[in-house]
C-alpha cells in the first residue's frame, strides 16, 4: 500500500472513536460499513448488494455513470431511503437509520444533490434548522445563530448576511450555504453529493481546502463528482458503481484517469470531445454595444452557423445575465441584437421573449433543470415534445411526434423504461439529456445553453458534446455558458471571456488554456486581445 495514509495515520484525532474490541481489521478503522445494500424503486432495482467502507480521515470518491445509484446509496446512509436489504454499521455497531433525523443524530451530515435549502428561511435558519439554539423562554436564540453562521460562512470565505433569505441567493451561494450547513453539523461522516456541480474553479479550490481541513480533523468524507480532475486532486479512495452494482474500490493513487473511466463506462472512452470543424457559415447572431446594466461597458459579439462559442468567466460576472437578456428576462440598457441579420425589437417582453425567439428558431436551455427546465412528473415524451407543441397555436391538434421522440431517445441514448416514464424518476444525467433533447428536436438554428452538462457523467458528457457538435455540423450554432473551463476549451470554437458585465477577451479555443482564460477573467480589460 503505497498510498499516503490518512493524515496523521497512527495518531487518531480525538473525536474519532476507537476501534471496537474484537475487531481484527488493520489499524485504520472503518468508521462506516455499508454491507450488501439493495434497494428497488417500484419495479426497478437501483442498488444490488452494494458494500462500501468509509475510513476516518479519508476522502472517499463515489463514481459512476448517471443513474448508477450513487445518490441512492448515499440517501440510504443519510436516512432518506431505507434499504430493502443490507446493513449499516458505524464503528461496528449496527445503525438503524429510519429518518434523516436519525442519521444526523448518528453523526452523518449530507449535502444533497438537489438543492434542498428552504427559500423562505434565512441562511442562519437553514443552517440550524432542526437543532436551533434555544434562548430565554424557549425562543430561538437568533443572535447566537447568526453569529455562528457568520463564522461558518467566513470559513468558506463568504461574507453573506446570515439573516438574508435564501431565496435572494445565487445558485453558487446556495451551494456554499449547503456545504456550510453540512460542515457546521460537526458530524463524523460528511456526504457531499456533487457539491461542485454549480461551482466554478475558484470556488472549487475554496471547497477543496475545506474538505482537506476536515479530513485532517479525522472526518470520513464521501465525495461524489463527475469532474475527474477533482477526484484525482482531492480523494484518497474511489469506489465505482455501475447499474446499481459495485464495480470495485481502488486507491486513487493507483489508478489512471483512463482506467477509472473504463471502470465506470465499461469501455475505453474514445475521445471526450468531438473534432472541431472549420466550416463557418453565415452570421446568425450579432450583438452590438449591448450594455447589460446602466453602468456596464458595452459588449459586442458575433456568432456564425456551424460554430460553438463560449462565454467564460468567473462566477457572477454577468454571463448569465447577458444570456438571459437575449430572451427578455432582463432588459439591457442599450444596444442592438440581430438574428439572421434582422434586428430584434428591443426590449423583448419578459413574458413572451422566449416565444418570440422560438419563432426565429432560437432556443434557450436553462441551467436549473429541476426548477426551470423539466416537468418532473410528466412523461419523457411530453418533456421532449413540448418544444414542438409550443410553436403551434392553442387549438391545433397535439401531434404525438412519436418518431421524433423515439429518435431523440435513441440518438441521445436515454436510459429509461419507456416514453411514458416520468422524467423525475430518471437519474440526473438522463434528465439533462431529455432537456437538451427537447431543444434538439425542436428544429432550431441557434441554441443558447447554460451549463450543458451540469451533474452529468463523463460518458453522457461526451455524448452531449457530440450531439452539440452534430447540431452545428448541420448548420446550427451554439452559444454556451459553463463553469467548467476545460469543457469550454474542449468543446468550443471560440471563447469570449466576460468580466464585470462586459467582454474583456476573445480567443480561439484551440489556443486557449485554463490559465489564459483565468488570467483574462481576473485582470479584466487589461488583458484584452484582438
Amino acid at each position, binding site marked *: 500500500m503505497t498510498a499516503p495514509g490518512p493524515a496523521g495515520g497512527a495518531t487518531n484525532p480525538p473525536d474519532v472513536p476507537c476501534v471496537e474490541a474484537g475487531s481484527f481489521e488493520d489499524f485504520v478503522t472503518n468508521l462506516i460499513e455499508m454491507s450488501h445494500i439493495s434497494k428497488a424503486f417500484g419495479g426497478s432495482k437501483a442498488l444490488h448488494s452494494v458494500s462500501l467502507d468509509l475510513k476516518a480521515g479519508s476522502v472517499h470518491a463515489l463514481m459512476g455513470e448517471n443513474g448508477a445509484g450513487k445518490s441512492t446509496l448515499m440517501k440510504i446512509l*443519510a436516512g*432518506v431511503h431505507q434499504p430493502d436489504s443490507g446493513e449499516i454499521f458505524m464503528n461496528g455497531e449496527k445503525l438503524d437509520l429510519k*429518518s*434523516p*433525523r436519525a442519521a*444526523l*443524530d448518528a453523526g452523518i451530515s*449530507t449535502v*444533497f444533490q*438537489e438543492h*434542498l435549502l*428552504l*427559500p*423562505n*428561511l434565512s441562511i442562519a*435558519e*437553514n443552517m440550524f*434548522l*432542526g*437543532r*436551533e439554539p*434555544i434562548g430565554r*423562554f*424557549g*425562543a*430561538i436564540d437568533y443572535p447566537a445563530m447568526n453569529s455562528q453562521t457568520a463564522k461558518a460562512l467566513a470559513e468558506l470565505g463568504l461574507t453573506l448576511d446570515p439573516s438574508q*433569505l435564501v431565496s*435572494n441567493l445565487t445558485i453558487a451561494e446556495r451551494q456554499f450555504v449547503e456545504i456550510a450547513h453540512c460542515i457546521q453539523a460537526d458530524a463524523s461522516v460528511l456526504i457531499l453529493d456533487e457539491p461542485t456541480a454549480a461551482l466554478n474553479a475558484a470556488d472549487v479550490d475554496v471547497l477543496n481546502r475545506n474538505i482537506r481541513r476536515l479530513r485532517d480533523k479525522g472526518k470520513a468524507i464521501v465525495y461524489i463528482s463527475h469532474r475527474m480532475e477533482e477526484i484525482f486532486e482531492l480523494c484518497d479512495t474511489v469506489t465505482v458503481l455501475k447499474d446499481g452494482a459495485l464495480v470495485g474500490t481502488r486507491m486513487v493513487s493507483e489508478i489512471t484517469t483512463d482506467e477509472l473511466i473504463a471502470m465506470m463506462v465499461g469501455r475505453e472512452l474514445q475521445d471526450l470531445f468531438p473534432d472541431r470543424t472549420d466550416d463557418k457559415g453565415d452570421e446568425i447572431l450579432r450583438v452590438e454595444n449591448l450594455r447589460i446594466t446602466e453602468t456596464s461597458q458595452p459588449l459586442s459579439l458575433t456568432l456564425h452557423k456551424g460554430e460553438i462559442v463560449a462565454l467564460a468567466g468567473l462566477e457572477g460576472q454577468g454571463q448569465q445575465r447577458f444570456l438571459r437578456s437575449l430572451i427578455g428576462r432582463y432588459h439591457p440598457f442599450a444596444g442592438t441584437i440581430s438574428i439572421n441579420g434582422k434586428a430584434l425589437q428591443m426590449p423583448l417582453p419578459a413574458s413572451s421573449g422566449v416565444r418570440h425567439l422560438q419563432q426565429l428558431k432560437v432556443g434557450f436551455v436553462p441551467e436549473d433543470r429541476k426548477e426551470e427546465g423539466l416537468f418532473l412528473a410528466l412523461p419523457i415524451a411530453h418533456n421532449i415534445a413540448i418544444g414542438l407543441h409550443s410553436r403551434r397555436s392553442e387549438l391545433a391538434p397535439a401531434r404525438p411526434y412519436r418518431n421524433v421522440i423515439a429518435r431523440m431517445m435513441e440518438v441521445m441514448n436515454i436510459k429509461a423504461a419507456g416514453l411514458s416514464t416520468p422524467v423525475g424518476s430518471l437519474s440526473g444525467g438522463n434528465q439533462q439529456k431529455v432537456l437538451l433533447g427537447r431543444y434538439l428536436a425542436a428544429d432550431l438554428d441557434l441554441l443558447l445553453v447554460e451549463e450543458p452538462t451540469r451533474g452529468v457523467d463523463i460518458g453522457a458528457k461526451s455524448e452531449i458534446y457530440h450531439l452539440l457538435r452534430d447540431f452545428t455540423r448541420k448548420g446550427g450554432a451554439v452559444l454556451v455558458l459553463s463553469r467548467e473551463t476545460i469543457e469550454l476549451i474542449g468543446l468550443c470554437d471560440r471563447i469570449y471571456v466576460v468580466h464585470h458585465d462586459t467582454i474583456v477577451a476573445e480567443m480561439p479555443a484551440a489556443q486557449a488554456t485554463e490559465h489564459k482564460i483565468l488570467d483574462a477573467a481576473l485582470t479584466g480589460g487589461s488583458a484584452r486581445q484582438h
Partner: protein
Amino acid sequence: MYRSLFNILSGRNTRQGLWGLPLLVALLISLWLTVQTREFATTENLFNLVAQAMPLIIAALGQLVVVLIGGLDLSVGSVISFTTAVLALGQPAILLIPAVFLLAAMIGLINGLAITRFNVHPIIATLSTQYIVLGITRILRPVSGGAVPGIVIDAVSGSLLGIPYPVFWGAVVILAAWKLLYGSRYGLHLFAIGGGIASGAESAARNFGVSDRRNIILAYVVCSCFAAVAGVFLAGRIVSGDPNVGLLFELDTVTAVALGGTQLSGGIGSLHGTVIGSLVMALLANGMNLANISPFVQTAIKGGILLAVVGLQSRKKMGL
C-alpha cells in the same frame, strides 16, 4: 439592518408576505370614518370593534397556522358551532371547557392524520370533517338555545379598569400565537415545512431532520383549538349554543389570512398581517353600518374593497 419603508410595506424580501397594503387600507378606512361619522372614533365603538373582530381574529390565527404549511382548514366553522353547542349542554364550566378543547383537538387530529398518514388532500379531509362535525352539532343542538356557563358569558361581557374583557382576550390570543410562531422552534419549523411544500419539495424540511408529519398534525390541532377559543368567545357573546353560528367562518378566515398578505401556497405570511386582514374585514362591516350604507349595496362594496386590496398585492409567483 436597514430596510427601506417600501420593502417593509410591500413585504418583499421577507417571509412576512404583503401586509403593508392592507394596513394602509385599514388606516384609510379608519381615517375616513373618523372624519365622516361622529361615532367611529369613540372609545365605545372602538371597544365594540375589538369585540366584533375578535372571533375572526382568533379563528384566522388558527387558519394562519395551517395555511403556513400550505394547508387549509375548512372545518373551522363547524368546530366553532360545535363548541358553542357543547358549551350550552348545561354542565358546569369546569367540565365543559376542558371537554371543548379536547374535542376540538381530536377533530384537528383527525384532519392531520388523514392528511399526513393517508395522503388525503387538505380540502377533502377538512370538508369531510366540516360535514361530520356539523352533523353532530345539529344532533346536539338542532336550533339555537341552551344555557352557556355564566363564567363564559362574564368573560366576554365584563370589563376591568374600564377596558372590556375582549381586549384582554385579544392580547392573550395574539401573545399565544406570537409565542407559537415566532417564539419557538415549532414556529420556524412551520415556515420551513411550508417553504418546502410551496417550492414543490414536500420532504425538504424532513431532510433537515424536522419531522414534518408530526408538525403538520400539530398544526391542524392548533387550528382547531384556536377555532374552539373563538367558539367559546362567541358562545359568551350570543349567550347560547347555535348550530349555525360558525357558518362561513372557513371562508372568512381564509379571506382574512390572504388579505393580510399570507400566501396560501405556504411558507410566507405573518401574524400581524392576519390580524390586520381580520381588522379590515371587521372595519368594513362596522364602518358600513356607521356610515349608514344601505344593506343592498354593502355586499358589493365589501367585495369591491377586497378586490381592490388584493388586486394591488401582486406577487412573484402565480397561484392560490
